[in-house]
């Protein structure tokens, strides 16, 4: 049976040969053995370096803005298309951009990958007790090879945090699917950590978040990685009015994260990329998760992470139960 990587290469070749796409966005090996970085191919030869495996990968959907904004705006020919490797979470991000009128669906070739969750090498290293030299992944287990000993770890233990709260294991619709649906298990919604925070007193909660936000270095990685953050000019970049003091201070960090959380409230697709890219490990998923949880509860939405044309917080209704 062909591996997904082989199948991808075959498909990419076909797409380029038939002149269907101008660009293919995928992954290639990064600078360390297990890191994967975004790769862009304008022809088949460039695409040969691309691979698909189960190591942690960055989110690709956001690159579509750069590549397709001009097409959507009508500056460049409408027929130009970009193919993109798409897992379920990427798909939600792409939907977000389409719903927000940033890009057009007709310009995208969704190359779908089913996904069981990606492997967090840091977690594997921790369990092994040293930096793994070789990691092999099979159906259920991850085998990490150390200097002297090997360790067999169950996949569930080393899966990325963001994958634990996955709400879509493969793209809901795609142009090309690289593999049959995997036997993935539907994950139960887990708001237990959020409920723990809800139980705290106001003071405890303030202290908890102060500890988290103190660490923030305001690198804006969370914003830059987020597909819901697709503004032409972010409010934090605008100098007049100055919504955020440029000083790095905890109170300003609070402002930054709260405003961002409210800006993505009802629009966050629960991909967890913000938390993954944070260099200081701020648990942003908790903040966005709280808002999703509340929206699901207050507006009777089944899954707040799935982008819809009309957002629960973005609609005017005359029969709104809340008088205005």
């Amino acid at each position, binding site marked *: 049976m062909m591996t997904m990587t082989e199948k991808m290469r075959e498909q990419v070749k076909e797409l380029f040969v038939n002149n269907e796409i101008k660009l293919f966005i995928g992954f290639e090996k990064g600078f360390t053995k297990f890191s994967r970085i975004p790769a862009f191919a304008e022809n088949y030869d460039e695409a040969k370096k691309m691979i698909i495996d189960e190591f942690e990968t960055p989110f690709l959907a956001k690159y579509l803005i750069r590549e397709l904004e001009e097409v*959507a705006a009508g500056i460049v020919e409408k027929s130009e298309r970009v193919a993109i490797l798409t897992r379920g979470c990427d798909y939600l991000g792409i939907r977000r951009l389409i719903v*927000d*009128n940033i890009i057009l669906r007709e310009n995208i070739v969704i190359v779908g990958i089913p996904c069981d969750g990606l492997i967090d090498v840091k977690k594997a290293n921790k369990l092994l007790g040293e930096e793994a030299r070789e990691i092999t992944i099979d159906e259920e287990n991850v085998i990490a090879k150390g200097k002297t000993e090997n360790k067999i770890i169950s996949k569930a233990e080393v899966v990325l945090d963001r994958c634990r709260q996955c709400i879509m294991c493969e793209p809901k619709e795609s142009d090309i699917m690289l593999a049959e649906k995997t036997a993935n298990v539907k994950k139960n919604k887990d708001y237990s950590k959020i409920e723990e925070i809800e139980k705290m007193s106001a003071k405890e909660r303030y202290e908890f978040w102060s500890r988290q936000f103190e660490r923030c270095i305001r690198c804006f990685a969370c914003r830059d990685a987020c597909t819901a953050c697709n503004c*032409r000019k972010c409010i934090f970049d605008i100098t007049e009015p100055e919504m955020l003091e440029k000083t790095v201070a905890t109170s300003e960090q609070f402002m930054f994260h709260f405003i961002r959380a409210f800006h993505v409230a009802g629009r966050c697709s629960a991909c967890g990329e913000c938390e993954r890219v944070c260099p200081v490990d701020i648990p942003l998923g908790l903040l966005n998760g709280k808002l999703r949880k509340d929206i699901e509860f207050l507006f009777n939405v089944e899954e707040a992470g799935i982008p819809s044309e009309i957002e629960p917080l973005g609609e*005017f209704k005359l029969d709104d139960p809340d008088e205005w």
Partner: protein
Amino acid sequence: MKKIGVFVCWCGLNISSTVDVGKASEELKNYPGVFYADDYKYLCSDPGQELIKKTIIDNKLEGIVVAACSPNMHESTFRAAAEAAGLNPYRVEITNIREQTSWVHSNKEDATIKAIQLIKATVEKVKKSEDLFPQQIPLTKKVLVIGGGISGMTVALEVAEAGYPVILVEKEPQIGGNMAKLSETFPTLDCASCILTPKTAEVGRHSNITLMTNSEVVESSGYFGNFTVKIKRKPTFVDWEKCIGCMLCQEKCPKKTNSDFEHGMGKRKAISVAFPQAIPYRPIINEKECIYFKTGKCKMCVKVCPVDCIEFEQLENIVEENIGAIVVASGYELLPKEKLSEYGQGKYADVIDGMQFERIASASGPTEGVIRRPSDGKIPQSIVFIQCAGSRDNQKDRPYCSKICCMYTAKHAMLYKHQVHDGTATVFYMDIRAGGKGYEEFVQRAIEDDHVLYLRGRVARVYEEDGKLVVLGVDTLSSEQVRIEADLVVLATAVIPSEKAKVLGQTLKVGTDAYGFFNEAHPKLRPVESMTKGVFLAGCAQAPRDIPETVSQATGAAAKVITMFSKNHLVSDPQVAKVNEKICVGCLQCEPICPYKAIEPETIEVRIGHTVEKRQVATINKGLCQGCGACSVACRSGAMNLSGFSNEQILEELKALCL
């Protein structure tokens, strides 16, 4: 830095007793940007306004803050004063140190600190104020009146008399509304038809009124001064243009059906006019009852019609009209008896509601004015009237007073006693609310002259025993249980809004309250306006009311329309949303959130460097926008901004407050 003037008003003792106005103006003198600060006893007075004008001119002020009462009261006064002194009125801001400070606090020291803080925040806002200019918007001088009852007709006649065209839309085939069904009217006991029909006739013949009966408004778009409405004209199956109103068809039609107009008290033919004085006096075929529509045979009406005007194939059609203002006069209905389980839930034929009593007491009604009970046509010897049937009852979700029942119940009892002198009329009441000219005297007349028995108390149950209705209640004045055998029970059921009011509200984008009555813009000062500009309210569509009050309100609504039409164009409030196209990403999240549908996408061309970029952004229809600010909250990048309440201004205010 702008030169800003601060004026602190004492409002007599209203403010100065709780806020140290002198201290406030002194402290503001030293605040950055404030060039002039003073306090004055009554700034809204003529000398107060003169002081403001003179100070602006003498000091060449570029913005002023008036710390006084709510901007709802005198914002326009002070803005006009500033304009007279050559300052753009939108550079005037009000700090509310009365309703929001002096009236709600008692500690003078703390209240003064709060007042000073609020004034400082407003100074910061004014520093960011810009000149704003109202825009002229065109105006269609034609009014749409929805509802052809007494209120709708009054509006139509008043506006038509002033010389403006009126479209009067009525869902029934004839105008007159509920008033046409009434027998006599309180407190004068004159015949309702006699005072109504001159009005209906005038509406029917007025050259400025286009009458659209058997029609409903189904869609509305546009804005203040420029609405486009779609009106559904339901089929009548008779060509009303050709018809001469001979009514041979009605005479010969073999099919009798229940008449809606008679509220189940009488019959009508499948082709008929509702009542003899109907305007327009044209018949309509009841599609559900007509034999031809059911079986394809009969056509008796076609045979007898001398002018060939029966058109079985008629279809509904939609007409579109451009209009400038809308008056909603959709009227009322009565709470269905079926909802009142304690009174038999509608299963006893001789438990009727007030409107049914009107029909059997009406000279043009099914009994020709003789009060007979519906079950067997017997003249009742004992009638029990039950007031507040559903009204003032939280369990029926109608906690409000229906206002007209006290009076019409007294009228019903009197009409009955005038016919059946030896009969007994008993009224169960909670309180008698007879506030109105001649009303109390009227009720007293019923009690003293006509010997109507008033029992203060509630009825627990109405049931049937041995073929007779039994009313079981309590007289709370004597604390005794009362059991009355009645031939007829009349329920003064609650007044509820017209069934279609809620849908109509959504069509017109006018809010309704929890019960479905239309919301007025201000309960005291703007009672005939809705929150949507250009849409006015009249009659029971807004709240239960009697005929004199309905007519006054309708005349008021007409005056509002006439005032609006007396200008050649309308001036829009410049405090509306605006889009910063450079920032707008065109996501249009603002579009579904706008209650007034004022936001649309637009493709613009912008030059960026050496390329011309085309992209989608949001645009505001300044006529539709009411400046609610929902879009500016929804806009993440702050591209949407509300003039006069811009993000910059509000942020500056907040910064000043949080210092």
